[in-house]
């Protein structure tokens, strides 16, 4: 198993009700697998997950990316700073 840390921001954080979450994932799990896992466990963010950005260790990542061990995963809507 692979232990990861999830960080939520903006609308995703509000819908989750928490800023961060520790999670166990199967080794070799991808971002796509993580989204399915989260959709099942947290139906309240299922819709959000269709349009979120995801980062692995502070770099943007996509569905096919394999999540490395002890990764820091960010999940958030498109950015709106300035």
């Amino acid at each position, binding site marked *: 198993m692979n232990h990861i840390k999830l*960080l939520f*921001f*903006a*609308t995703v*954080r*509000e819908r989750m009700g928490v800023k961060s979450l520790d999670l166990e994932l199967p080794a070799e799990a991808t971002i796509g697998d993580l989204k399915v896992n989260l959709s099942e466990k947290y139906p309240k963010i299922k819709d959000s997950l269709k349009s979120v*950005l995801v*980062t692995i260790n*502070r770099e*943007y990542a*996509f569905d096919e990316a394999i999540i490395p061990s002890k990764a820091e995963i*960010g999940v*958030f*809507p*498109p*950015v*709106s*700073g*300035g």
Partner: protein
Amino acid sequence: MTFNMQPSSLPTVFSITEDEIDLNDLLARITLISTGAAAIFTGMVRGETKRGEEHQTEYLEYEAYIPMAEEKMKQVADEIRAKWDAVEGIAIVQRIGKLYPKTPTVLIACTAAHRDTGVFEAARYGIDRLKEIVPIWKKEVSPSGEFWVEGEYIPKAGE
């Protein structure tokens, strides 16, 4: 306010902060003996917006994924230097927290020897990129309720 400085002879200042943005201080930090021109962009909270759906804003509340945001600010500075090699100093600062109308919220500043070196375009590029890839979000609170402002940009692989 604490700043991150890249170890280089060319100053790069970047920061996510809850403190006031001090333009005088930031300009001084990126002014060198060789620089004669600075282009600075600042964004301020608008209390009244006419474009799109006309509305009023009581305040904006900003949040950031701070360590990643600072890394992406450094990346924006690197991109600026790759495109405009005349640019010497660069400052990129985003203020977060609850910010009221007329308050400066963001600053991008670039210095160069002369003004015709792309320094204006570099500052413009900097704010455009910040709004695309730096993980910061704002919630708008208005008399009619609150809503999160959502960006439109989807970063590509490697951004």
